[in-house]
């Protein structure tokens, strides 16, 4: 465990990567070596890491909650207690595999410590055989989920500081794996929490369509309206205006999906579209208050088997197209908007003299703060975001340039896709294809 005192002393010392020994009068001697994890934990990690995976597919996961009975709840907790530690072991190992110098970064090491703790808690938990025991466990599981709520901003901060020690590809490969792993951990945990609650609480009206965290009749239109009003408020508060939102296509379509996932994806894409529209038209017309902004148009297309073909076992998808007139992205930058883009983030972006041609989306690279105040140096990113409370209700993920790559990971998680096309000088289209979970039984979790 890296002592907190080390971090403090680092700030007082000159920024050269070496600590002056003169400081040792004030604080305990700093540590260059990272401490060994306890033997017990190391053993557990090895054990779980080498356990053959029990790939569960979605159908099986859902079966724990449909119907919600005490037997299935106990089966669910058994699965949870065996699968979660294994996944967390993977996470711990991948963090431990990072270059040593990266591992000594306080943010990265904080992550590692937190994951080790969570892993140990779950790996050493005794088996649960009663519903009362499960109730207590569910409470602890919720605390655990809460504890990890800010993982991604923390990792982002850490990697930003380590950008010279790892290549962008290494970082993005690591993050892709970490985020996918995180999605699956949360899926399993929250599914179990929901299933337990369904048993202990009477079914709420309107909730009857839920199987754990999957809403069998998820309505894209209501999700769009919800995310749309949140983003509208956000946009008006920070940029002074926001474009109208229009829904067309088959607006009443519903499908089986995990609403939180859809909510996240829609919010990120709408944030991009709204900000781009306001900024692009602001640049064109000088002010944004008095002109009518072109709408963001969302087209919903329901899943159905292709009309002319014989019935097959092909998956069905619900498609959503989000079209804006936000000025578009130059073709040369289209690849960048999907990268985690550390090299242009925060401090140094201006110093490089780099002409950031990403247009309205360039703000994503530098962090949401840049869109608000010109060229905030990297160190202030978290301060900006936390301070202005910009992302109230959505955690602090937003504004770091993670929106599109993460949305794509979410979309692809169950076998869907997210594609981006742009007309430079006019606007962009995002094509979202989401797999209907009632027919995605074979999807691996």
């Amino acid at each position: 465990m890296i002592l907190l005192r080390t971090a403090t002393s680092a700030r007082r010392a000159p920024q050269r990567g070496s600590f002056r020994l003169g400081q040792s009068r004030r604080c305990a001697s700093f540590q260059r070596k990272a401490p060994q994890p306890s033997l017990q934990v190391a053993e557990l990690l090895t054990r779980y890491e080498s356990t053959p995976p029990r790939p569960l597919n979605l159908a099986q996961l859902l079966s724990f909650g449909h119907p919600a009975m005490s037997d299935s709840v106990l089966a669910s907790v058994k699965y949870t207690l065996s699968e979660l530690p294994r996944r967390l072991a993977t996470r711990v190992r991948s963090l431990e595999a990072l270059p040593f110098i990266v591992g000594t970064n306080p943010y990265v090491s904080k992550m590692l410590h937190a994951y080790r703790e969570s892993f140990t808690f779950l790996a050493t938990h005794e088996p649960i055989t009663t519903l009362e025991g499960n109730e207590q466990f569910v409470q602890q599981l919720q605390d655990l989920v809460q504890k990890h709520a800010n993982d991604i901003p923390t990792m982002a901060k850490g990697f930003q500081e380590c950008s010279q020690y790892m290549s962008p590809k290494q970082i993005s490969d690591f993050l892709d794996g970490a985020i996918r792993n995180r999605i699956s951990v949360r899926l399993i945990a929250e599914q179990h929490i929901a299933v337990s609650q369904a048993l202990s609480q009477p079914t709420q009206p309107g909730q009857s369509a839920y199987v754990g965290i999957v809403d069998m009749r998820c309505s894209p239109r209501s999700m769009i309206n919800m995310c749309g009003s949140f983003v509208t408020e956000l946009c008006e508060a920070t940029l002074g205006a926001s474009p109208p939102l229009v829904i067309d296509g088959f607006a009443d379509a519903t499908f089986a999906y995990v609403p939180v996932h859809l909510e996240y994806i829609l919010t990120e894409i709408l944030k991009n579209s709204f900000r781009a529209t306001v900024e692009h038209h602001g640049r064109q017309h000088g002010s944004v208050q008095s002109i009518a902004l072109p709408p963001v148009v969302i087209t919903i297309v329901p899943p159905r088997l292709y009309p002319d073909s014989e019935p097959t076992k092909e998956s069905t998808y619900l498609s959503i197209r989000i079209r804006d007139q936000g000025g578009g992205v130059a073709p040369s930058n289209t690849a960048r908007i999907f990268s985690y883009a550390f090299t242009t983030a925060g401090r140094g972006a201006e110093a490089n003299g780099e002409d950031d041609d990403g247009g309205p989306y360039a703000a994503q690279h530098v962090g949401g703060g840049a869109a608000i105040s010109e060229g905030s140096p990297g160190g202030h990113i978290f301060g900006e975001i936390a301070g202005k409370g910009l992302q109230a209700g959505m955690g602090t993920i937003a504004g770091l340039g993670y929106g599109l790559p993460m949305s794509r990971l979410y979309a692809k998680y169950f076998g869907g896709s997210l594609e981006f096309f742009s007309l430079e000088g006019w606007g962009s289209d995002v094509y979202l294809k989401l797999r209907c979970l009632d027919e995605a039984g074979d999807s691996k979790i």
Partner: protein
Amino acid sequence: MLKIGCSYRTLFSASNGTITHRSVNSTRHQSTALHFYQNKQLELYASKQASRLTLRQLVFFGRKMNEDRLMKSANYVRTELPVRIAHRLRDLQALPFIVVTQEGVGRVYELYWSAFEKLRRYPPITTLDENEKFCEFLGGLLNEHAPVIPNITLGLSLASPHLPPESLDSFMRRMLVSRISRRVLAEHHIALSEGFVGRGQRTDGEPHVGIIFTGLNVKRSVERCARLLRESPIWIYDEENLPDPSCWPEVHVEGHVNTSFAYIREHLEYIIFELLKNSMHATYAHHHKEKTLPAVQVTIVAGEHDVGIRISDQGGGLRTARNRVKNPADLFSFSHLRNEARLDDSRLGALRSASSQQAGFVGTVDEQVGRWQKARKQESTGLITDGAAIQQTHPRIGIGLPMSNIYTTYFGGSLDLISLDGWGTDVYLRLPKLGKNLEGIEV
């Protein structure tokens, strides 16, 4: 023993470097051997590099025409074309034997040899008179080669089981893009010559240099294509037996509507024509039971380096029984492994019919419209009465999208299709507007 095709009995024999036909019964061993050993001239030309041009160069060269430059242009065309044809011939020679012996391919091989021989022997051009004869000669060659595209498409489609998809598609791409490039060189020179001598072709007074229109207004081209499609909706008559349209989808244009740039008008209009044709057909097929048809939305955008054109329709998307492909880009493929429809009987039949006509297929809007107008005249005078016969004048050979893709990428543009299955299709067309990219042919 060399036997080419089942219905096409021609042998290659080479004596004195010319190709002559012999009946099947003559001695075959010696003829092909001669052909083999006389490949030297071809190898000589094939070893030269093609010199590629940019659109800008084509324009700048043609702007200030004088006799001297015209001669330069003529001799450039005279020496460049055989090099490019030689590359294609070597490409054909490298294909598996079983592919070149498919129906249609042999004929293309022969046509190319004939053109190669004629061009490499053509004497240098030094006077205006000689140039005029040269232009006539070029025009003749172009006409002679009109059946190339349907023949090669037929042959390669039939050969699809014998070639991996990547090889097939890259071969077809090289053939078609080289063909376009040779047409561009030839037609540009012919146009420059006619312009110099004062016999400009019909250009509606628009500013142009040769075949390049320097102020091509995109909206005007879109509207022209839409109008032509509305006037000649023979594209409706097809195997689905749809009722006659009482109305057709409108085409709405939005965006930077005044966008103009320098480009080859024939190319731009062919691409837009084909894409609009697909959109209108799909919209009609998907909504014909309703009273009104949703419009096709065209958005024109002038970017920094490109002109962007997005065509959005509500035609139900690309995943239909007609298009059995895994992803939209497979529609550009000639391989039946990627696009099953390539080996459909109706498709092959249409290709055969197109291959047997001398008029062939050139790849322009005027060619298609001309055919339809002729058919309508015949229909109105009672010469043709049923849809099937009319369809013969517009055989659906399924080449619109691949050709559009080749035209688009010729000077470095891009064409992307994305489907919203159940709703419609969006097409993104990007064409470079600065004219700085080199021709996309193999060197």
